[in-house]
């Protein structure tokens, strides 16, 4: 169970990990506790599966990467094999089975458009794939995976 302190800590650490010499000391100041307590709780929260990753999150477009959201229509008995083949691409960061005609949705990041085209063509040709749509973004209005605890 998360304590009230954990929740406060998670709320802060989700949005602002200070970029300075002793970042956790600063967070401790905000929470009116000490650095060791912050570090211990964060290690616990990470070890117990509440935190997926701590660190730097970069903007793919600003780094020059090309991205798209794509979906494939896969016959159910081939779904697992197709999902695993898609997962094998390093540029696939999210891959979800979803209800509906297009039943597997994934995001793909590549260093350039050519690599994206080739990757999508390979995926389209996997056995069991009956259709593929690629939906590149024209405008990003919000990316903020933050939860209020």
């Amino acid at each position, binding site marked *: 169970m998360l304590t009230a302190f954990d929740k406060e800590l998670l709320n802060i650490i989700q*949005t602002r990990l200070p970029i300075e010499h002793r970042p956790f000391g600063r967070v401790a100041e905000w929470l009116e506790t000490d650095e060791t307590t912050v570090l211990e709780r964060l290690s616990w929260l990470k070890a117990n599966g509440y935190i997926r990753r701590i660190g730097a999150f970069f903007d793919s477009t600003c780094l020059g990467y090309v991205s798209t959201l794509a979906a494939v229509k896969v016959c159910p008995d081939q779904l697992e094999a197709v999902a695993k083949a898609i997962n094998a691409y390093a540029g696939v960061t999210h891959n979800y089975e979803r209800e509906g005609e297009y039943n597997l949705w994934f995001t793909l990041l590549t260093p350039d458009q050519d690599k994206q085209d080739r990757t999508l063509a390979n995926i389209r040709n996997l056995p069991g794939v009956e259709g593929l749509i690629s939906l590149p973004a024209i405008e990003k209005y919000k990316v903020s995976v933050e939860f209020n605890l």
Partner: protein
Amino acid sequence: MLDNLDKKIIAVMQDDFPLVAEPYQELAARIGISEDELLTKLNNYQKAGKLRKMGAVLKHREIGYAANALCAWIVPETRLDEVGRLMSGCKAVTHCYARIPQPEWPYNFYTMLHAHTRDECKALALKLAQMAGLDSYTLLFSTREWKKTSMNYFPEYANGEWPE
């Protein structure tokens, strides 16, 4: 533009962030620069929008947000920006994009919804639809997570060698 040092910094910053008192010191040593230089670079990346955030991403299922739905909308092209601003203001919307539709898939606007239950997702979508005056949308509930990871940018720079 990013030079080799930038790419090396970005590659190393994707390692697990050390949970120690002086984490940037440790990361700077791995990169082979001073801590001050690393802190300056990171602050600059943040100002330029390259660094979206320094922080943590939580496992949403573990903290009680068990239901997630990708909601695909049909929004008239002239209203994209207005609807984008409107929906971005809603806390339960974590991602909001306008996208190029396809002939066989007419949806051109996407919101990711996180909630505690499926019914809550449905109610949220209905609320958003009413708020924005939209009636064409579909809720794509996830039934299985096959992969969820952070992108590894410039992996070829991570291990010491700087490729040319």
